[in-house]
């Protein structure tokens, strides 16, 4: 006779298990655990909104309080995914409004959200608290107004219209209007900030002038994160002094961002908070290296730094000296489209930071030259890297010292950084780099490849070697049918594969679709007619993802899911 613990006890134990991975494992132990677990799961993350249908989710998990969904493929950020592709939030929101009256949080990324959906959200969930829309589109301030008006408990909002907030004290904790292009009524903003004692995060948009910033800060000295508006003013000595006084009062401030149109003479107005700063985003500030260095050397506790390439190697040397707690560095290109940016940012800056910052785990670095020796040095210095995204701006740029491909350099990265989860490649690369990646990058979850490789062998190395691979996105590489068809089973273990401007044929797509019923093989072709394709024609863009929801029906005309049933009837 096997004793089993009562349901309530198991539920209580399960409540301590929060990671999706662990929850999924729990549900596989036995039928009764599956049942108990599904009733007490409160948080759902759907990485690809087409991998599962809304009703499958609500049927299995009836008591959910928080849902996070992602829609378009990552390359949509760079305009590679055409308009109208999909990622519509509407069916999800309708289903959730029906099935989850107690839903508290909705987080959507790269999805299309309409005003109607926002209105539905605002009236369906009595306990609604958090709405986060990142990189979404399709809504206007009307929809946001509905949220503001109807959700009295909303604590965390992004990009919302101000004037519809209730007049009484609010429990607002986070307000992010950084993406709003238009001016907002400053008095409405000031009043809202004044009656939100729990406000921790405030991100203004560019239109909020610097002169008004001190007013807001004085009303919200409890802020933990601040995004400024435009950071310049006419010559007014009183602006500087009132600003520094206001910053002096912000004892909890840990994160700063914004800084559009920076006037360097106002930079050190926030001098008093520098020593507490853990996060600094200067990536919109076109200030030069000496000014950046001045700021950075005052911030010994910085963990995250986002900056333009104006920081130059000298600025990064200062980072290496001063910011010993740095975990994440992102260096963006100030002028991505010219060949020579007149900015002395080279591989040396990154090497310095890798030497000086022992906790560095995450790197995004745009530069114009790189060498294998630099990459090897970085790899040896920082085996604790988890995310390494390097973009050498010129496609197929070789090692600038030896003119060789950067295979060996990236090979060193994957060999030394055993916990690497995300990698973006650039520069001149042959199949060899993929051999290294397949051999060493066992924990790699996301790989981005562009203008690289020589043949299918490259792709084959990746698909056959990277055990943990979940997302693979490839553009402009000579990868064709062979590697895909040799690794069909692998595709079902991944969330998605994106290939554009490669050499995969239509026939291979049909074959794949036939062989793997659990995959949606979507072919995108904006230029021609999908119906008149010959098998040997290469497809323009290809998006393959695993799904239990079958082929989707909301695609525009230039996208087709290869229909398994029709494959046999087409010549």
């Amino acid at each position, binding site marked *: 006779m096997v004793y089993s613990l009562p349901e309530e006890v198991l539920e209580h134990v399960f409540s301590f298990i929060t990671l999706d991975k662990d929850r999924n494992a729990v549900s596989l132990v036995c039928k009764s655990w599956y049942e108990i677990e599904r009733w007490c799961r409160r948080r759902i993350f759907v990485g690809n909104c087409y991998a599962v249908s809304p009703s499958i989710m609500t049927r299995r998990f009836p008591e959910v309080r928080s849902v996070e969904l992602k829609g378009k493929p990552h*390359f949509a*950020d*760079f*305009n*590679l995914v055409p308009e109208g592709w999909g990622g519509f939030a509407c069916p999800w929101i309708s289903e959730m409004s029906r099935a989850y009256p107690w839903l508290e949080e909705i987080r959507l990324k790269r999805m299309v959200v309409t005003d109607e959906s926002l209105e539905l959200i605002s009236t369906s969930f009595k306990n609604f608290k958090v709405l986060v829309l990142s990189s979404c589109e399709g809504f206007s301030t009307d929809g946001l107004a509905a949220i503001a008006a109807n959700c009295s408990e909303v604590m965390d909002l992004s990009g919302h219209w101000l004037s519809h907030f209730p007049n009484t004290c609010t429990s607002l904790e986070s307000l992010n209007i950084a993406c709003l292009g238009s001016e907002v009524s400053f008095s409405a903003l000031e009043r809202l900030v004044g009656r939100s004692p729990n406000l921790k995060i405030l991100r203004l948009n560019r239109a909020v*002038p*610097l002169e008004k910033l001190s007013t807001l800060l004085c009303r919200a000295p409890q802020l933990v994160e601040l995004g400024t508006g*435009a950071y*310049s*003013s*006419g*010559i*007014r000595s*009183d602006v500087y002094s009132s600003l520094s006084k206001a910053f002096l009062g912000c004892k909890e401030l840990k994160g700063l961002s914004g800084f559009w*149109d920076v*006037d*360097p*003479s106002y930079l050190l107005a926030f001098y008093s908070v520098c020593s507490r700063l853990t996060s600094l985003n200067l*990536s*919109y500030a*076109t*200030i*030069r290296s000496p000014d950046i260095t001045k700021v950075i050397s005052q911030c010994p506790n910085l963990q995250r730094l986002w900056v*333009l390439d104006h920081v130059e190697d000298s600025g990064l040397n200062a980072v290496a000296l001063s910011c010993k707690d740095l975990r994440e560095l992102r260096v*963006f*290109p*100030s*002028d*991505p*489209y*010219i*060949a020579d940016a007149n900015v002395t940012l080279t591989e040396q800056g990154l090497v310095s930071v890798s030497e000086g910052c022992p906790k560095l785990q995450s790197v995004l670095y*745009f530069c114009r030259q790189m060498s294998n020796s630099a990459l090897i040095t970085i790899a040896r210095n920082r085996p604790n890297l988890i995310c390494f995204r390097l*973009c050498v*701006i*010129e*496609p*197929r*740029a*070789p090692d600038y010292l030896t003119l060789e491909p950067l295979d060996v350099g990236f090979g060193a990265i994957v060999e030394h950084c055993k916990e690497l989860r995300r990698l*973006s490649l650039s520069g*001149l690369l042959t199949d060899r780099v993929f051999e290294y990646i397949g051999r060493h990058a066992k924990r790699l979850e996301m790989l*981005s490849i*562009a*203008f690289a*490789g*020589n*043949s299918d062998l490259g792709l084959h190395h990746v698909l056959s070697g990277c055990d943990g691979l979940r997302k693979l996105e490839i*553009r*402009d590489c*000579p990868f*064709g049918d062979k590697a895909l068809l040799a690794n069909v089973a692998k595709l079902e273990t991944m969330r998605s594969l994106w290939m*554009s*401007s490669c*050499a995969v044929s239509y026939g291979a797509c049909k074959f794949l679709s036939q062989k793997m019923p659990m995959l949606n093989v979507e072919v995108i072709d904006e*230029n*021609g007619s999908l119906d008149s394709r010959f098998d040997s*024609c*290469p497809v*323009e863009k290809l998006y393959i993802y695993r799904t239990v929801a079958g082929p989707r029906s909301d695609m525009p005309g230039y996208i087709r899911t290869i229909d398994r049933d029709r494959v046999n009837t087409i010549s």
Partner: protein
Amino acid sequence: MDRKRSSLNLFEDIDLNYKATELRLGLPGTDDQPEIKTSLSGNKRSSSEMESSTCTDENESRSASPTKEQVVGWPPVRSYRRNIVQGKKESSEMGSGMYVKVSMDGAPYLRKVDLKMYRSYEELMEGLQKMFKCIIGLYSEREGYNGSQHAPTYEDKDGDWMLVGDVPWEMFITSCKRLRIMKASEARGLDDSL
């Protein structure tokens, strides 16, 4: 034939003679551009490049150009990050120009300064003071430039003469068409007339 059809160069390595066997879609008479391993100008033709170019002249899109804008989605920078410096350059180069004439009352000839060389009012004042060997007073919102014999003014896009320093620097350099360093006595007249 559809002009937008792209020519796909499927393989990069010229060693593997795939070009002999590859299937290509292309406009009749399009050239075979050899892929060179070392990078030159940002003009590597990829299929996405061809798709995105809307100009009807094939040659124009293929000729060497300094901009990389022809490759869609490369470098992988989100659109709101693309014009940080470019936007400023465009707005400053359009019409108003960066080199502006500077006249000083009583000086025999005019000078020209490049506003782009300065990052703030302080720097501009320093530059002007050096150039004209004069002293410009301290700015205050209420009283303009006090405490010296000279005050800087500028002509804006609308043709009005304005006191330098009232608006944010960025706005100033995009609207300033010329500068005039006035005698303080005249400048006070400017203020009074407001």
